[in-house]
């Protein structure tokens, strides 16, 4: 049936409710719900347009570049097309029945067969797989891409022309690749999108290609990702050799039936833990986790809209998506080895990145490190079997981190690239920056986990679950919980460190070194107003620089995103599966019942029955002897307040200048620790020392081997006759052309005479 559908050409693309994939839900959950017919011809074609429209937009922008377009047309065309893509996703979501898997076939991509047996054919078609998980991802990917595209139309305005086209071309191509990654029907489609987003990330990090730091950062991102991608590739191949398929539908069928291609029980094979670990390596590379995270802070060299969309909201969550998507495989292992590694990898990364963020001065880097830290939370959430919490955190984080980045971008745009928090202060009072300040405050409250914000709810779901999950499932998960709780405090501190220093306090600012001269609509009135109101501040030295307040597009996007960050909190109360995200996860093919996983699975099923929603079935851990679900709200709320309070005391109370604060005195007091944290624990230097330097040494060795040994042998063949003739008959080497010719003729004559004598 599926095959017939996938054979249809794109023009006849259509959808079906795939009954087989419902098996992935666990038969008990949705028994009898199969075949709820919906979709149909138009629905499938519309879904296929979701990724194809951004691809078309990329081609269109490329065409505009050929005509050397010098207006903002590429931006507005992109935003319009991406907006349509978002609307189509919304229509698909609204038409979705809440639990089915919709598969849309476009065309045959890879369809091989070299025998009739199991595992002797490979099918990976250009087809899409819609369930709760991919819909949730697509909603925020297309939605945020539209908004951030609009923001970028203004932010990139000083590059109108070819640079502008280059930016939006890669931007649209990224959305297409990300759609392929998320919506793909099989692991090879995911890999295609995975490499596509990697390429676009590289292109956009290196957007300012005349700046060495940006080019190096792009290279670093690409190379570090390659290492993780090797894991993903081997994992995909191993999946194929184990299950004889790379299509999600048949994979989940095999996994749920606990069989492999050879018929052996899955949980008795070594692949059951090896494949998840290999996929995890890919996920950790793309999502900048432990060992691989070093590329993400450097990626902040790219334009800020790119940092917001690719390196905060969407691409870096691809790893989380991969793990969430393959969750049935992760929980198939009765020892949960891979998930334990995911939990601890995530928790340690969250803590590690937070400690670095505390000591940085570049506000965009701080946001970069906080992204790494928050991604750690998401992985830890998936690891402790809180798929809902992890996925909800992806969703809320996408909005509030995009808000934070775009606010930083507005500051960067307005102050000629200035990002040093020691050189900016009191922006709240600078004309035109009020909206930015409010958006920043909302983003900071979310990131700090301030009570009743979206970030608070999503983070608490992860934290509570970390304490709830018994050690028999995930080793020492409550310790991971404590580590993450401590990290939550650090997060609140470094977040509000930025806010208290940059946005409130005495007004003072120094322009960055970016040349914005002759740069369009500087608001002359606003600039004049600043000069008047701050004449008494002349001592602080404004150097005749006038901040450039954000225009309507940037402000509009900031308002919408800040609003969305607040409203996302409401999603926690929607539906009956722990909020809206829970409903989406529950309605996806990857849903599993946490209580029925791991060593205790059999015992738990035995004593508490089958219901997925019955919390009594959950083997609860405790925190301080109480139910974590109840006390976590209070504990993490208090931790957040403590973090904000410390930031308030150190960076706001009594501060009279941008550069001075009590924290600076404290930093001097604990100089070695501070210096190491500011130096990012010198991980880059360590990697350089153990990897880059040896490679350079080896390449030099090979270079000299090539030059001396290989070239030497070649030179020997030329040199030997010369040395021979020089020593044996030095007089013969006259260097005169005719002498050599004469001797050659004599030689030929001798040969001819000999031949003639022999023949006759």
């Amino acid at each position, binding site marked *: 049936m599926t095959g017939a559908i996938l054979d249809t050409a794109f023009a006849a693309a259509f959808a079906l409710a795939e009954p087989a994939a419902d098996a992935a839900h666990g038969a008990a959950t949705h028994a009898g719900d199969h075949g709820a017919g919906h979709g149909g011809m138009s629905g499938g074609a519309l879904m296929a347009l979701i990724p194809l429209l951004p691809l078309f937009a990329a081609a269109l922008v490329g065409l505009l570049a050929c005509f050397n377009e010098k207006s903002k047309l590429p931006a507005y065309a992109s935003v319009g097309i991406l907006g349509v893509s978002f609307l189509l996703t919304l229509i698909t979501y609204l038409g979705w029945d809440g639990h089915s898997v919709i598969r849309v076939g476009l065309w045959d991509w890879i369809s091989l067969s070299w025998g009739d047996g199991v595992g002797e054919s490979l099918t990976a078609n250009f087809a899409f797989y819609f369930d709760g998980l991919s819909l949730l991802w697509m909603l925020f990917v297309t939605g945020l891409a539209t908004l951030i595209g609009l923001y970028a139309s203004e932010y990139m305005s000083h590059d109108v022309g070819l640079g502008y086209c280059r930016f939006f071309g890669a931007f649209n191509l990224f959305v297409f690749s990300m759609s392929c990654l998320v919506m793909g029907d099989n692991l090879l489609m995911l890999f295609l999108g995975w490499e596509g987003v990697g390429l676009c990330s590289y292109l956009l990090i290196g957007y300012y290609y005349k700046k060495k730091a940006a080019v190096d950062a792009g290279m670093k991102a690409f190379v570090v990702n390659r290492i993780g991608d090797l894991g993903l590739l081997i994992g995909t191949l191993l999946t194929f050799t184990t299950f004889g398929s790379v299509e999600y539908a048949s994979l989940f069928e095999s996994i749920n039936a606990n069989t492999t291609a050879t018929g052996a029980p899955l949980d008795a094979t070594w692949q059951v833990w090896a494949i998840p670990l290999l996929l995890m390596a890919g996920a950790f590379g793309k999502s900048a986790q432990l060992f691989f995270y070093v590329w993400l802070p450097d990626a902040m060299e790219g334009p800020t809209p790119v940092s917001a969309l690719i390196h905060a909201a969407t691409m870096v969550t691809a790893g989380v998506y991969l793990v969430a998507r393959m969750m049935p495989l992760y929980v198939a292992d009765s020892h949960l080895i891979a998930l334990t590694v995911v939990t601890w990898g995530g928790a340690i990364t969250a803590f590690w990145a937070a400690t670095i963020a505390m000591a940085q001065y570049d506000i965009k880097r701080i946001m970069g490190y906080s992204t790494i830290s928050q991604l750690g939370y998401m992985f830890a959430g998936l690891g402790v079997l809180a798929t809902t919490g992890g996925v909800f955190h992806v969703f809320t984080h996408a909005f509030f981190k995009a808000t934070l980045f775009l606010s930083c971008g507005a500051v960067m745009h307005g102050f000629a690239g200035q990002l040093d928090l020691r050189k900016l202060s009191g922006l709240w009072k600078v004309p035109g920056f009020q909206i930015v300040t409010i958006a920043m405050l909302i983003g900071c409250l979310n990131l700090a986990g301030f009570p009743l914000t979206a970030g608070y709810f999503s983070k608490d779901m992860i934290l509570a679950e970390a304490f709830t999950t018994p050690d028999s499932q995930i080793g020492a998960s409550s310790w991971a919980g404590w580590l993450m709780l401590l990290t939550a405090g650090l997060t609140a501190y470094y977040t509000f460190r930025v806010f208290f220093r940059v946005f409130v306090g005495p007004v003072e600012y120094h322009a960055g070194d970016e040349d914005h001269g002759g740069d369009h609509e500087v608001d002359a009135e606003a600039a004049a107003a600043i000069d008047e109101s701050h004449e008494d501040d002349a001592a602080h030295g404004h150097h005749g620089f006038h901040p450039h307040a954000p225009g309507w597009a940037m402000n509009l996007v900031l308002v919408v995103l800040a609003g969305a960050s607040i409203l996302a909190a409401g999603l926690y109360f929607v539906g009956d599966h722990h909020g809206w995200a829970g409903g989406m996860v529950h309605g996806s093919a990857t849903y599993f019942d946490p209580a029925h996983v791991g060593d205790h699975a059999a015992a738990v099923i035995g004593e508490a029955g089958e219901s997925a929603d019955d919390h009594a079935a959950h083997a609860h851990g405790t925190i301080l002897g109480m139910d974590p679900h109840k006390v976590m709200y209070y504990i993490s709320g208090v931790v957040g307040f403590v973090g904000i309070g410390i930031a308030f005391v150190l960076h706001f109370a009594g501060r009279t200048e941008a550069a001075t604060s009590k924290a600076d005195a404290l930093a001097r007091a604990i100089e070695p620790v501070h210096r190491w944290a500011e130096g990012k624990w010198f991980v880059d230097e360590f990697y350089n020392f153990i990897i880059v330097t040896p490679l350079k040494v080896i390449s030099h060795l090979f270079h000299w081997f090539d030059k001396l040994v290989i070239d030497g042998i070649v030179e020997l063949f030329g040199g030997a006759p*010369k040395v021979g*003739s*020089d020593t044996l008959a*030095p007089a*013969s*080497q*006259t*260097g*005169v*052309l*005719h002498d050599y*010719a*004469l001797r050659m*003729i004599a030689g030929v004559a001798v040969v001819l005479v000999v031949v003639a004598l022999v023949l006759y």
Partner: protein
Amino acid sequence: MIQAGFETGLLLAQAPFPEAMGAATLNHYLFVSAAMFALGLIGFMTRRNLIIMFLCTELMFQAAGLAMIAFGRYHMNFDGQTFVIFVLTIAAAEAAMALALVVLLFRKRESLDADLWAELKG
């Protein structure tokens, strides 16, 4: 058979020396070829002008080509002609390079005298 004309394609084939003048045989071609080669060789050995020496090598080239075509015709196959087509192609490329070299050498010494170059002297 002896009197068969050149046009019939049989003249060179296995024909002994003709009894009458006016019909070209294999030996005629070989004689012309040998003469050309000798002229080229003597020219190469006696002249010092780089361009003349280069022209003489081309003359020897074409002499060898002529002999090959004649032999090919004699054996009634196309091997000789085919080979000569290749030789001509490569000779064209080689001529372009050789003349470029001559120009470079001339620029160095403002002279075409081959004896000015004796860098290989041991």
